[in-house]
C-alpha cells in the first residue's frame, strides 16, 4: 500500500481547507469523495421494516411469552371468593403464617439453583437485577436494602447454567457487577457480568 500525501488526509478530515491543496492532490480528494458519494447514493435494497415488525408482533402474541410476562411482571390481582371458601382460605393463611421459616424457603426444581445478588450502592433509591434470565426487563427482580446501609440483596431461583446480568440503579444506570469473576462483552459494547448457577439437586 502506498502512503498518500498527508495533506490529503488533513483535507478530508476537515483540518485544512482543500483550496490549500495543489491541483494534483485536490484531484485525489475529489476522487475519494466521488467514490464515497457513489456508495452512498446506491440503492440499499428492500426495506426490512415489515419483517422486523411482524417478528415483534409474533413475539408479543406467543402464549409462552405472555404467560412468562404475566408471571414475572408486577400487576394487581383481584380475588373474588365465595363465602363458603373464605373460611378455608383464612385457615390456610393462618397455617402458612404459623409454619416455621424454613418451610417457606425457596422451592427448587431439579435443574435449578439459588442465586444471591449482593451489590453496594450507597444512596441509591432502587436497585434491580436484569439479565438473560428475565429477558433484560426491569421491574421483575428488585434488590432490597432493609437496614439502609447501602448494601442491596436479592435471592432468587434460577435455571442452572450461565447467565449474563447487570444491575439497574435508580431505574436509569446500568452497572455490571464488579464483584463477578467473569465478564462478557455484549452487542451493545457493554460488559455484562456472568453468573454460573449450580443445580442444587445434582
Amino acid at each position: 500500500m502506498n502512503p498518500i500525501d498527508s495533506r490529503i488526509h488533513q483535507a478530508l478530515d476537515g483540518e485544512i481547507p482543500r483550496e490549500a491543496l495543489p491541483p494534483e492532490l485536490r484531484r485525489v480528494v475529489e476522487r475519494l469523495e466521488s467514490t464515497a458519494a457513489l456508495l452512498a447514493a446506491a440503492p440499499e435494497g428492500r426495506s426490512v421494516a415489515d419483517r422486523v415488525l411482524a417478528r415483534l408482533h409474533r413475539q408479543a402474541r406467543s402464549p409462552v411469552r405472555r404467560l412468562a410476562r404475566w408471571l414475572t411482571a408486577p400487576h394487581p390481582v383481584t380475588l373474588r371468593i365465595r363465602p363458603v371458601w373464605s373460611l378455608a382460605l383464612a385457615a390456610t393463611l393462618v397455617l402458612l403464617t404459623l409454619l416455621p421459616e424454613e418451610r417457606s424457603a425457596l422451592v427448587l426444581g431439579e435443574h435449578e439453583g439459588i442465586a444471591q445478588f449482593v451489590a453496594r450502592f450507597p444512596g441509591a433509591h432502587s436497585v434491580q437485577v436484569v439479565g438473560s434470565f428475565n429477558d433484560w426487563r426491569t421491574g421483575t427482580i428488585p434488590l432490597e436494602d432493609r437496614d439502609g446501609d447501602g448494601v442491596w440483596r436479592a435471592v432468587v431461583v434460577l435455571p442452572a447454567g450461565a447467565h449474563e446480568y447487570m444491575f439497574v440503579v435508580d431505574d436509569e444506570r446500568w452497572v455490571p457487577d464488579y464483584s463477578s469473576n467473569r465478564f462478557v462483552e455484549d452487542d451493545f459494547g457493554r460488559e455484562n457480568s456472568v453468573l454460573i448457577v449450580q443445580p442444587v439437586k445434582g
Partner: protein
Amino acid sequence: MDVREGPSDAEMVARVLGGDREAFGLIVRRYESGLLRFATRVLGGRDAAADAVAESLVRAYRHLASCRDPTRLRTWLYRIVANRCKSHLARRATGDVSLDDAPPIADPADNEAALERVEQLALVEQALATLSPDKREAFVLKHVEGMSYQEMAAVTGERIPTLKMRVHRAREALLKALEERS
C-alpha cells in the same frame, strides 16, 4: 447533522418503553436505510445485510431500555449492526467479502449516464471488497455515513487515534485498488 421531521429519538424511545410498539416502527423507518447501506457495504451483499439489520433491530427492540442516552439512538443502532456484521464475517470461513447478490442492473431504458454509473458502482464495490473488514467499516462510517470520529468511536468502541489510522489506511488501500481496476 441531518434535520428530521417528526418526534425526536428520545420521544420515540420513551413511547416504545411506555408500551407503544408501533412507535418502534418509526425508529425502524427513520434509520433502516442508513443501516442497510452500512451493512451492505461492510458485508458486501444485500441479502446478508438485510438479515443482519433485521436481526439487529429485533435485538434493539428487546434491549431498548438499556439505551442509556436515547439522544444517541443512531450510534447505538449502528453499534448493534456493526457487531452483528462482525459476527457474520467471523462465521465466514475466509473473512473476505463475497458479492452474494448481483449489483444493481441498469434498466435498458436508462440513459448512457445511468449505465456508466452502474459500471462505476460495480468497480467501486469490488475495490471496497478488497479492504480488510476493519478498514472497510472505518471508511464506510466516515465517508458514506458521514460520521465524526467521536460518533465512530461510539459505534465501534475503538479509540479515535486508532480509527483515524484505519480511515487513512483505508483511503490509501481504496485508491490503490481503484487504480488497479481503471
